[in-house]
């Protein structure tokens, strides 16, 4: 190629700037098409087209690329392969299996590694669920196979297809690309259904109907379940400066929340954290199924030093995998750690494209991308008529711990649950460092009915009382900060003591303690009950002019602070004893 030719026969690289590559004078490509760049076939995606120039972002290091290197289109948008073998696997941002890459290129990831996303040679024990003559719609289940010990993989007709079954294979062992069912659509075209399908990552998978968010995602974390609950199919943001425990919270949620499947996206975060997740989750046994946590977990690891364009894609890859399992009728929770890194990847690429920046250099389309992302969450009736959900929990890493920066602000607009992490709580090692004054959940009213039905009216009553005590304490602390706590009247001192018991005994939770790491809702309720019982009783005694110092000397507040350790999760009857002890200790004071 000598530059004077206007329309080259093959498309070749013209310019290179970081992960952005341009092609001149071509009409071959379509927007968002996946392409292979250069001799080593690096994966890329078309992100801009005009009549002079096509712009491509490359998902791998571009060192060594030359003008004149070939670019080959694939004719389809960036997509992922969906099929059995996803669970208990670890992928990079564009669904390349990292274990397989390790076998090819060793401990360091080399470029252009061509591996299939899923193992093509593994046999799956397939049970066919349809017979010849059945009419299948998109989304219907045509076969199943056990994927892990606890997850049954349900093969669903791609949402874009429908037709009459013309042939089926017998039950048995099949590989990923084997055809097990064929269908003929209305136009008489035959389609072969294998064990896998492809789906473009930037398109939401369709569902029949969206259902209201009326079932909570139970996390076993007191401050979340009780004070700021999230619904199945809901969205939550965990913003916090570094060291406030975003990742720790995400890990706790991934371990304990009652979703069927967890998709954990490590987006631009630390490599050691991913190896920690791998280590911990394979050792940790899920109490419900008695199987390792990895049996229900998919990991997507695009660490901060891996190519930035793939980081941008990793979020969508994770979401698409989550939606695929949702369509089988599972409740899926996706942890995105951290969405700020994803937004920064957007900014970085936008900068390379020399787009006009909006706030702090972020592109003007940041809010619309964020809203698109969070709107893919939801509890739905799937195309096959069962119920599934995708819950999105995104960590946000605000620059300079300043919640007014664009990513936090925009995330706040599109999520309904906001767990604000607080530096001063983290400094005092109060974990989870969720600030009860700045956080909120919009799911209260949606979930109230569920709580009432399953835990009785008391639960909500207790929660409201606890919340109001904490608010009262916060107001009193303003005064204490100025003049000290000694001058307060005893009833206000009681509020402060009780709030302390709530903070230390209830809100604070020890992720490393075998009982405290996951607390059932029933115990949460009884803990609140015990605290409020002491508060109400003490209030009456103080009204009878008995000084609060007498109550604090009974050691009851210390017992409340330690009840989370002293009372095991399976011995909740011990709370009766605790309440009886409170009564008898206080009775001594009045006598």
């Amino acid at each position, binding site marked *: 190629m000598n530059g004077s030719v206007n329309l080259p026969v093959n498309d070749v690289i*013209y*310019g*290179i*700037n970081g992960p952005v590559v341009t092609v001149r004078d071509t009409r071959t490509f379509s927007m968002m098409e996946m392409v292979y760049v250069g001799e080593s076939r690096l994966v890329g995606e078309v992100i801009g087209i005009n009549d002079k120039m096509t712009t491509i972002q490359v998902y791998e290091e*571009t*060192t*060594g*690329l*030359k*003008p004149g290197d070939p670019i080959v289109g694939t004719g389809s948008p960036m997509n992922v392969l969906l099929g059995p073998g996803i669970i208990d696997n670890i992928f990079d941002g564009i669904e390349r299996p990292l*274990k397989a*890459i*390790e076998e090819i*290129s*060793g*401990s*360091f*990831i*080399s*470029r252009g590694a061509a591996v299939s996303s899923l193992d093509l040679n593994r046999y799956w024990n397939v049970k066919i669920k349809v017979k010849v003559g059945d009419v299948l719609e998109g989304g219907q289940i045509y076969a199943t196979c056990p994927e892990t010990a606890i997850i049954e993989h349900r093969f669903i007709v791609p949402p874009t297809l429908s037709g009459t079954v013309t042939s089926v294979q017998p039950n048995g062992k099949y590989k990923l690309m084997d055809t097990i069912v064929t269908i003929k659509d209305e136009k008489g075209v035959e389609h072969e259904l294998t064990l896998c399908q492809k789906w473009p990552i930037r398109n939401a998978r369709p569902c029949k109907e969206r259902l209201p968010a009326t079932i909570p995602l139970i996390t076993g974390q007191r401050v979340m379940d009780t004070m700021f609950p999230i619904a199945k199919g809901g969205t939550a943001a965990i913003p916090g*400066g*570094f*060291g406030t425990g975003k990742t720790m919270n995400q890990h706790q949620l991934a371990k304990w929340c009652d979703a069927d499947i967890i998709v954990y996206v490590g987006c*631009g975060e*630390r*490599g*050691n954290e*991913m*190896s920690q997740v*791998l*280590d911990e989750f394979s050792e940790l046994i899920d109490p419900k199924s008695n199987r390792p946590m990895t049996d229900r977990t998919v990991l997507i690891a695009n*660490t*901060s*030093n*891996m190519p*930035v364009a793939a980081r941008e894609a990793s979020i969508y890859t994770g979401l698409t995998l989550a939606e695929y399992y949702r369509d089988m009728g599972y409740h899926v929770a996706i942890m995105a750690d951290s969405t700020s890194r994803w937004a920064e990847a957007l*900014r*970085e690429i936008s*900068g390379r494209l020399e787009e006009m920046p909006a706030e*702090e*250099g972020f592109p003007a389309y940041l809010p619309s991308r964020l809203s698109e992302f969070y709107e893919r969450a939801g509890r739905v009736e799937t195309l096959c008529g069962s119920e599934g959900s995708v819950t999105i929990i995104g960590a946000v*890493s605000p*620059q*300079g*711990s300043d919640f007014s920066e664009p990513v936090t602000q925009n995330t706040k607009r599109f999520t309904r649950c906001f767990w604000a992490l607080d530096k*001063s709580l983290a400094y*005092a*090692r109060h974990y989870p460092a969720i600030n009860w004054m700045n956080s909120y959940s919009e799911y209260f009213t949606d979930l109230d009915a569920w709580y009432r039905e399953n835990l009785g009216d008391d639960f909500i009553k207790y929660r409201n009382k606890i919340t109001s005590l904490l608010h009262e304490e916060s107001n009193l602390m303003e005064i*204490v*900060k*100025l*003049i*000290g706590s*000694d001058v307060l009247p005893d009833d206000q001192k009681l509020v402060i003591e009780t709030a302390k018991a709530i903070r*230390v005994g209830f809100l604070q939770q020890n992720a*490393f303690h075998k009982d405290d790491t996951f607390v059932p809702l029933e115990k949460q309720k009884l803990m609140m009950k015990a605290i409020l019982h002491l508060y109400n009783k003490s209030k009456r005694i103080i009204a009878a002019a008995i000084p609060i110092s007498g109550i604090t000397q009974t*050691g009851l507040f*210390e017992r409340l602070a*330690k009840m989370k*350790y002293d009372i095991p999760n399976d011995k909740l009857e011990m709370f009766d004893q605790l309440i009886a002890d409170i009564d008898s200790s206080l009775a001594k004071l009045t006598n």
Partner: protein
Amino acid sequence: MIIDYVGVKEINGSLIVLDNVEGASYEEMVDIRLDNGTYRHGRIVQIEGKRIVVQVFEGTKSISLDNTRTRLKAKPMELALSPEIMGRVFSGAGVPIDGLGDVYPVKKANINGTPMNPVSRIYPRNYINTGISTIDTLMTLIRGQKLPIFSGSGMKHNELAVQIVRQAKISDDEDNNFCVVFAAMGVKNDVADYFRRSFDQSGVLSRVVMFLNLANDPIIERTLTPRCALTAAEYLAFECNMHVLVIMTDMTSYAEALREFSSSKGEIPGRKGFPGYLYSDLASLYERAGMVKGSTGSVTQIPILTMPNDDITHPVPDLTGYITEGQIVLDRALEGAGFYPPVSVLPSLSRLMKDGIGEGYTRADHQALANQLFASYARVQDARSLASVIGEEELSPVDKKYMQFGKLFEQYFVNQGYDENRTIEQSLDLGWKLLSTLPRTELDRVDDTLLDRYYISDPERIVFDGSDGEENKNEDED
């Protein structure tokens, strides 16, 4: 066929633009010969058809539009590596400057490295005993970790780094496997010299690889310095199976060099003028710490950065904190009060410590003790701010106890000698003794069995004399 391209089309800061170049590849190295016979080196940072943009490492001073001849080297920037690099001194761009001649390479490696596969990483669990109470007890350094020191101009971060190197080395039983890679970016000549002398005095100089880019050296070279250093460190760790401690100072100068380069390239700035890719760029350095399967070596990083105006929310410390596994924050008030090392305990943190301490590593009570010390010291801050309003006299008895605890904590626990090497038992016992100055009911992070074992209820037995704690240790043993 080797082509020399005569002249340049444009000069802008440290960048030159050449036209009509054939066959250039992205990030390829170029040699630039000036008419006076001197050579400069550069790297291609942007290509548009036949127009290429080259960053010149040594700067563009005295380059004119037609006094240069540029030759493409057809390879990316590589560093010559061999075990012989230990004890050598290199420039920021990896050229030997100690007058001992070139390194005979066993291997050449691209200085950008390649990302470590997360699957191949070994999760770091072995703790490094630094002999410094605050670090060992409250923000334990783990082998394979990246733990930066957030400091400010004029504070004793260099002394602390040297002390860590000296004492960490002593505790290492596989002594021959230990080495240090030192990368100086934009530091003053005196500082580089201080490190060299200190390494010499502690007898490790033959195990140190130095990459020096001083404050008056070209900034493009500065952006290469940590990459060269980490390439050397990875080689020594993963191919020679050594435990490598990488000290990089000062990361703020590095980031500023990056900003200077970015703005001359005309890129859209992010916060405080730093380029939008600062996070990814810093991550590509810090993430090169760790351990991998198939090798017994490790890369542990201690980057040092000075926070401009002591502001921890400045982009450089902020983004660093998001990438590294914790941080050691130094505090000017403690420094002013004469305490060394002036570690500000509350904002400091080690993310990896929870899995590298406790039974089998340090001692079973370590985590609980650390939590309680953090919580109690946080209470001290509340008491102090109250005291500054209403006066210390007016505080409640409990708050007064906290005030006293705070003082003792800083004086005996935080403060320790530059040459003082405390064992982990000494540090932990000292922590318990300090907690024992508080009422037992205040210790709500520790369960009763630990309190029964370690809480000293007899105030007569809580004695602090001198900070060595040796005498006190004997008293603790029942």
